[in-house]
């Protein structure tokens, strides 16, 4: 929990960022890379793509370090990049209609072994949500961000966050009920 709080709070703190981009970005990755990969895995259900998205986000931060006007809040920047990367990946998946006969991403052996059936059902339901609802839900309840923080991270209004979250919770309840 403490780690999650650090992830959530660091972008509002006045962090002392090392001056050199390589050092700064590597340190940021060491501290937050794993948590961001976890977030992307839940978003995408595909570890390889999740790791690609997070790597790309940090590479983007690294390449643009000199042009950033505010390098004191790099986590907010890279987190937004991860969310946008996930959004793009989901958009690319969903842009074309998908066959009902196509298998979804395989669940990892770790998940099958370590996560209860009930929790796996909840995550599976989350993955059936439209991307925006899924994103709002994870920012709110996985990262414990407030509605305002979630709205800023997603680049939408607080009302949209509230609406998306409400719809998502309702849909999850219905999906789980249908499948029980």
């Amino acid at each position, binding site marked *: 929990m403490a780690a999650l709080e650090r992830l959530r709070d660091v972008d509002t703190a006045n962090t002392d960022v090392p001056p050199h981009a390589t050092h700064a970005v590597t340190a940021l990755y060491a501290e937050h890379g794993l948590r961001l990969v976890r977030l992307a895995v839940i978003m995408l259900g595909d570890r390889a793509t999740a790791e690609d998205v997070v790597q790309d986000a940090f590479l983007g931060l690294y390449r*643009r370090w000199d042009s950033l006007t505010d390098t004191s809040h790099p986590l907010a920047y890279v987190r937004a990049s991860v969310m946008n990367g996930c959004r793009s990946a989901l958009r690319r998946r969903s842009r074309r209609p998908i066959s*009902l006969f196509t298998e979804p*991403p395989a669940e990892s052996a770790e998940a099958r072994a370590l996560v209860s059936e009930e929790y796996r059902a909840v995550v599976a339901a989350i993955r059936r949500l439209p991307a925006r609802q899924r994103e709002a839900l994870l920012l709110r309840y996985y990262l414990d961000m407030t509605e305002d923080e979630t709205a800023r991270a997603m680049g939408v209004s*607080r009302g949209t966050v509230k609406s998306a979250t*409400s719809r998502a919770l309702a849909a999850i309840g219905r999906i789980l009920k249908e499948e029980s």
Partner: protein
Amino acid sequence: MTPAERAVRAATRAYGETVTEVRPLDLTAAAKPGERYVRPRRRRRFPAWTAPVAAAAAVIALAISLVIVRNIPDRPAPASGGVPRYYAALIPQPPQGFQNKLAVGDTFTGARLATLTPARGNSFVAVTAAADDRTFVVATQPIDTGAPDNRVPPRTWYLLRIAPGTSSQVRLTRLPIPDLKGDDVLTVALSGSGREIAVGLIPDYATSPRSPVQLRVYSVTTGKLERAWSTSDQTAFGGPGRFSVESLSTTALTWVDDDRALAFPTISAASDPLTHQDVIHETVRLLDMSAGGGDLIADSRVIWSTQRESVPVTDQHGLLSCVNNLSILPMLTADGKTIVCAAIKSPNTQGTLTAPGPQTLAWLAYSTSTPTVARTLAQVTVEAPSSTTPANDLLWADSSGGTLIGTWTLEMASTGFIDPNPPPAYRPHWGVIADGKFRPLTTMGDLNLYSGIAW
């Protein structure tokens, strides 16, 4: 916190903790792109001196593409009822869809007149049409701009002209409109005459996301900036992040009244002091080009507005209205008298659109003289299997809103892989909407996939 919220929190954390390690960060892929394996979607950053070479390569690649242009059919087009004959569409390419090609086709015969391929590493990201159905402006950009948020600023602009019966039936000409690198470009719209192009954007968004929203009008032939308006109100054009990937909106900005005015939407949310619910407020504003001033909001006026509570489970489920479909913005027709939009009605009690069962997709019109009264131009009822999301879109409207072009599609919610050859039930259904009916445009049948289209 409700039981559902607790379940989501606990389940996501338990699932996340199954990932215990990640591969090291490889910054050398960014620092020395030529020396290491780079995943297909990552692109090298070209040094500045290569820009002219890249531009020349783009022209060459496009010229090569034009060699394969088929002859435009010389038989007369079927009765069109005012629907433009030719379209230009951005077509994402397999395997991952990072590159858009540009397809030029005949709406009525189904003939594909040309497929244009941008230079290696580039993608078409914008397409917008004039009123004559023969003139388009398109733009390309390098697939990876280095921006972490996948913005798609047009970098290189081209004029696309269709000239049936000539030796060069599809012509592409480089335009001097400025490179918008680093900007969050939300929408582009070519004027009916084809002489001017309007661009809605947030300048320098990557480094200054709170920059004022701007509307700029450029001369197509000279690239000169003719007019500009700005506002700190970021609700204009639907706000940042609304159109953030792969292609730009072509309906969030429209030219009206013989190109003397521009119409654009705003979307905002505010708390209702009585119900304490957030209320989504959507407007269409009209900007008179002949008037002075440079404030996008102060110098424009609201000609249509609607609102609803943002939490649909309270009382708004099942509502059929423009604002029920926030991803599709309302559009003012060129005569300035009618607002048209695509809308969705969900029959289930939770307002979610992923429920199985019949769902109604509609295209609505509001007269600006009676802006609260909606007319249903056409609707289709779709039987949506579980885990699918029916979606509809509005792509073109004639000058009075009497005839539209739209699509509806049955999509999986989000999970799964891309299927390049979906079963017929999951392909887009194109149609002309007029006289209360959705008439299928079967000739568009081979266009199973697009990320932008203009008529």
